[in-house]
């Protein structure tokens, strides 16, 4: 009996051992794969070069006890006047100002003019670098303004995948904004209407009080 029992148990053991082994191998491989992919994704996201490609949102923690005012800006002088007007005429101590810039979607060339290779990598790099530089300048400009006027606030930017107007409205919803301040025109080139297309869009769709500062 004992020998049979032993045999069966050892047989069972023999049967079980490969299963155990396979299980541990699978588990280890799975863990390694997960860690690798997580690492790759983190590296991808943190790489500054790639950040300009994808829709990155600087998510700052907004103070809960203060009411949020959104000032939509671009690099125009009209935006600067909108900021000053808010500060001079509307600002309250309990305000937290979100100076928001929506990056316009940029057309990237599909053909390279300099190199014979099909992918216009150099052109893209140049365009994206200029874009990032301009963004950093704008960010600095408004951070200085916030500091100089002792305004409690932050500069936030987001990429507009399609249009700037909807992105601004989206930001207002996400950040629980009380009202919006913006210039009537930005850096756009169309001068046919008195009200710029972005201001017009936000005015009609934001469902919030919007103050439009004329040029």
């Amino acid at each position, binding site marked *: 009996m004992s020998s049979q029992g032993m045999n069966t148990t050892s047989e069972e053991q023999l049967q079980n051992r490969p299963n155990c082994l396979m299980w541990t191998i699978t588990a280890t491989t799975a863990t390694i794969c997960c860690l690798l992919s997580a690492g790759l994704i983190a590296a991808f996201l943190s790489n500054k070069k790639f950040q300009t490609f994808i829709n990155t949102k600087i998510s700052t923690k907004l103070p809960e006890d203060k*009411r949020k005012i959104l000032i939509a800006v671009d690099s125009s002088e009209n935006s600067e006047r909108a900021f000053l*007007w808010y500060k*001079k*005429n*509307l600002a*309250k101590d309990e305000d937290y100002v979100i100076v928001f810039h929506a990056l316009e979607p940029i057309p990237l060339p599909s053909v390279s003019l300099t190199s014979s290779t099909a992918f216009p990598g150099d052109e893209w790099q140049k365009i994206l670098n200029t874009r990032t530089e301009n963004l950093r300048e704008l960010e600095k400009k408004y951070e200085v303004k916030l500091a100089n006027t002792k305004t409690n606030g932050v500069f936030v930017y987001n990429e507009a995948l399609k249009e700037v107007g909807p992105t601004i409205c989206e930001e207002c919803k996400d950040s629980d904004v*009380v*009202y919006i301040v913006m210039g*009537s025109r930005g850096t756009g080139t169309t001068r046919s*209407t*008195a*009200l710029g297309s972005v201001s017009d869009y936000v*005015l*009609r769709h*934001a*469902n*919030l*009080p*919007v*103050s*439009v*500062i*004329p040029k």
Partner: protein
Amino acid sequence: MSSKTVVIAVDGSKNADHAFEKYCEIMHLRSNKLIALHIEDQLAIPADQALTLSESHYEKICKEHNEDIEALKANYRSKAQRYHIEKYEFRSLLNREPGVLICEFAENVGAIQIVMGTRGLGLIRRTVLGSVSDYVVTHAKTPVTIIPMAAN
């Protein structure tokens, strides 16, 4: 701090009421002087009666018109009191081009902004922005704040 004037265009519509209250709630500063501006349109005399209107009938129409304005004035006055607006004025001006008058008035009093609702008592409901609000936003040299009804 010097007193800053804010002009709010009112017409008795729900939109104007809402804009008034919202302004008081979130934008008014205690030092601000608030002027509620009402633009009167011409008297509502039915076209077919215009030539045969008797004096008493005309007087009746005028009286009703003035009563409406007084009611409107009282309505906004009570709102201003509710929000403890210290410097408050109600002005009613007669003009056929309300948009133009609002812009000019705001400039004359040196207002820092014009506050309006999106629509007034107008009949055309297809547009988001009523004709007067639309005019003022595009033509005013003063900053304009449009307060929509949906704002909570």
